[in-house]
């Protein structure tokens, strides 16, 4: 390990460039690999059974979202922005609508009720994302029972999300000026027992992670990133909080109504993968308690759900941030007075976390690599096509976006099914 830390992302496809001189073997993972659901190319340089240095190539899923946004209106972009990520779509939409509201000068007009519904969506998303992650982590460490148990329980929160928004993964509740749908009283009543049930289940998951020796041994003292290193490499979100950096955007720079809720940010000083896991499990619990508070507040909170906002946004620039499930999500927008953005920049949290994760691998055993790689919750969004399989004949057909859109428009026009 060199004394002065340098950033990764330097590999060529064969791993020759800038390879560490003392390594004697290299392992390639990706760009397509059964282990990883997302396309990234990891190159791991080994000396015997130990990792000397790991590197990565990214960019297999560049969709040009920022450029695409410049060609669309602010209002159309409300539905394009959540596509930045497959699983944490609500948080991208939230950051976006807050930015546009600020530029349009209506940020103080958003009602309390609308803000509470937004927060409900954001926290529900954090819960299902975290449960998904530690389920897969259990699978990677060879403890498949917990994968099945946690994913079974995850369905509870997915049902809640579906109930309030109509969609399982992409709730798309937020609009410029408020929210699309209300959470009526009967849904609040329906949701409460589900949340209580899930709290019990997540407490049980936590017990397994902390008390079950076979999984604890796989995670404890593995892939340590100290606080000093973390300050240098600057990961964000749970990846940093596992190393004792106590910053959570919800607390450090509050948005929506997070400063009115009673909750505490979670951080652990150990810096190993177990600390990261506990950060996420405790955060899940904390979010569940937050959901209960939000539901209590929703009983009495009033206000219009959607404000009128003009389509043309006045000239200006602004930056907004939010705590996504994976870390700090930042958007920067610039308007030129028309109805389209002049420039829009999105930085999703995973890009900032890759470097720190690769640093964790230095000197570790090759057997620990999958667990460490999983630790930052890899997310390179990959939802750009669908595959249709005919149930009876087994015939497969890949359909790209344009064709799918055409069919959808036709189906809407003639009021019939898409397929």
């Amino acid at each position, binding site marked *: 390990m060199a004394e002065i830390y340098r950033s990764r992302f330097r590999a060529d496809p064969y791993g020759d460039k*800038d390879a560490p001189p003392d390594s004697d073997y290299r392992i390639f993972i990706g760009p397509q690999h059964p282990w990883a659901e997302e396309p990234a190319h990891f190159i791991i340089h080994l000396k015997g059974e130990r990792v000397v240095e790991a590197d990565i190539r990214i960019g297999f899923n560049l969709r040009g979202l920022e450029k695409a946004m410049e060609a669309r209106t602010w209002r159309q972009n409300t539905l394009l922005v959540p596509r930045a990520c497959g699983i944490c779509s609500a948080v991208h939409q939230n950051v976006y609508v807050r930015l546009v509201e600020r530029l349009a000068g209506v940020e103080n007009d958003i009602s309390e009720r609308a803000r509470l519904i937004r927060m409900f969506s954001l926290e529900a998303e954090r819960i299902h994302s975290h449960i998904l992650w530690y389920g897969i982590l259990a699978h990677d460490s060879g403890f498949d029972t917990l994968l099945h148990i946690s994913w079974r329980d995850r369905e509870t929160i997915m049902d809640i999300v579906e109930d309030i928004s109509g969609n399982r993964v992409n709730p798309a509740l937020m609009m410029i000026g408020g929210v699309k749908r209300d959470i009526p009283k009967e849904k609040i009543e329906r949701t409460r027992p589900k949340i209580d049930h899930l709290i019990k289940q997540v407490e049980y998951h936590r017990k397994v992670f902390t008390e079950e020796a076979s999984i604890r041994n796989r995670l404890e003292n593995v892939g340590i990133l100290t606080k000093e290193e973390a300050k240098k*490499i*600057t990961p964000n979100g749970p990846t940093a909080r596992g190393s004792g950096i106590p*910053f959570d955007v919800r607390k450090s*720079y509050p948005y929506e109504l997070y400063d009115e809720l009673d909750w505490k940010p979670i951080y652990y000083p150990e810096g190993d993968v177990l600390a990261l896991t506990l950060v996420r499990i405790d955060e899940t619990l904390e979010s569940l308690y937050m959901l209960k508070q939000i539901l209590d507040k929703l009983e009495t909170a009033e206000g219009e759900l959607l404000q009128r906002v003009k389509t043309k946004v006045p000239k200006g620039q602004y930056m907004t941030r939010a705590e996504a499930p994976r870390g700090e999500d930042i958007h920067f927008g610039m308007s030129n007075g028309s109805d389209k953005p002049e420039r829009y920049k999105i930085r999703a949290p995973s890009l900032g976390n890759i470097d720190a994760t690769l640093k964790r691998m230095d000197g570790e055993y090759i057997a620990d690599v999958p667990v460490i790689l999983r630790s930052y919750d890899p997310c390179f969004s990959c939802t750009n096509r669908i595959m249709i399989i005919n149930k009876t004949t087994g015939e497969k057909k890949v359909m790209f976006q344009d064709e799918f859109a055409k069919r959808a428009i036709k189906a809407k026009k003639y009021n019939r099914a898409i397929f």
Partner: protein
Amino acid sequence: MSMKELVEILQTEIPEKLVDEIERVEGAPHFTIYVKVDKSRDLMKILHDNAGIYHLTTVTGLEIPDKEFRVIYHLQHRDEETEKEVPINVIITGIDINKPTSPTMSDIFVCAEYYEREIYDFYGIYFENHPFMERLILPENWPDDVRPMRKEYSWQDIKEITLSLAKKISED
């Protein structure tokens, strides 16, 4: 006024000749500093070494059509006791539009290295003294002279280039 507030938060002196303008964004504390490209390194050094700012969230590239390029460093000033952050956006102005170069900050902030490479990909702004100024995120067969985020390329142009690349690969 905003200078005074910022100095109070950072608890370090910022030489006035370095900055063009400091704006305090309304609402929660959130500052924007405008600095000329030739003085940007000195300012960032002061912010990192004297004020103790270590967190760089990201770097944004920006084109002001027919005028200049800009690079924005989104920094966070962190106070561990109160667990509060003060965002500071350092906007580097006056980058030449015909031959865009800007000094690298990768030796000050480690993560600037790959964020700067992303801007090099998208805008073609060359960062001087950068240890590894190569393509980060664009495909390997992407034409060298096309900088997709520049205003001279419309969304339609980019779509055509992408399709022609895909066609070329499938023909090979």
